[in-house]
């Protein structure tokens, strides 16, 4: 990617599929500002009834872990069974957990 500055900033788009569910990352759009980002996100990711709510976040504001972090960040949980909620029974009638 060149460092061209004539491109609008990238915004990450998160869509909520129905009330109560979590927002999920849907993709990204270019836009000059927040309102246009929201409109573009609606047009690109919400035009076929995929969403009841949309978040847009400037991509530059997202802080991400780096690939080298994969060991120290995620390994320690793997061998500790007691960290997993496998021994709990899910109450009846609970659909989303």
């Amino acid at each position, binding site marked *: 990617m060149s460092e061209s500055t004539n491109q*609008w900033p990238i915004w990450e788009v998160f869509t909520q599929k129905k009330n109560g569910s979590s927002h999920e990352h849907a993709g990204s*759009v*270019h*836009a*000059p500002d927040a*309102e*246009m980002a929201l*409109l*573009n996100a*609606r*047009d*690109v990711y919400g*035009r076929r009834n995929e969403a009841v709510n949309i978040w847009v976040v400037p991509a530059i504001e997202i802080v991400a872990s780096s690939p080298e972090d994969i060991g120290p960040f995620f390994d320690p949980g793997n061998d500790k069974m007691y960290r997993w909620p496998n021994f709990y029974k899910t109450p009846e009638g609970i659909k989303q957990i």
Partner: protein
Amino acid sequence: MTKEEAIFEYCTRIGDNAVILGHRLSEWTGHSPILEEDIALGNMSLDLIGQARGFLTYAGAVEGKGRSEDDLAYHRDAHQYKNKNINELPKGDFGFTMLRSFLFSSFAYLQFRDLVKSKDETISGLAEKALKEITYHVRHTSQWVIRLGDGTEESYQRINESLQELWSYTDELFEENDVDAFLQKEGISFSHKNLRLEWDKMIDEVFAKANLSKPVGGYQSKGGMLGLHTEHLGFILAEMQFLPRAYPDAIW
């Protein structure tokens, strides 16, 4: 004039506005300044084609001569088209397209808002669906009018030039004739003239943020709803109608 004739006429006007503006917006497909806007213009175009289908299908049904939406869209000539002339003007640059859609959609928004209360259930239902779509069109296009008007020196100059041209087609939005008077008495449609003040307010609000001022005086087009059109409509119809006329048996 019978009630059926009046409804046919009125629904054809709405359907024609939608099919002609929808065609103009579809001309941007693959040519928009950015991908996101290409999709947005395509969405708006498809909304309009959907509205055209609804209103033309109903017009055909009310007329009772067995004409379908396709018969009406593809087998009428320019003088039988009843759209407002603003919608047939060539797409121009991106600012022109956005400003045209903003001016027209603001009118259509008010028109559909009222038609939701129509005593004709089909018209009321079609208006309810169209209102949601047009509400978005107003929002999307007004944002661009603001950004281009309040943008760079060049963007201001270009959209202001577009405004000088488009303004000549705005009085026509509010035109009415005996068809309207008839339907208004029946509670089927509502006054367009009375929408002018509200429309002006919508335009003023956006223009204030866009540093644009409404032109005063000058030529005003009229008569689109009577079949009096600019030279541009014939070219749209030639392109749009070529295939169904050359190959009448063609199907999807």
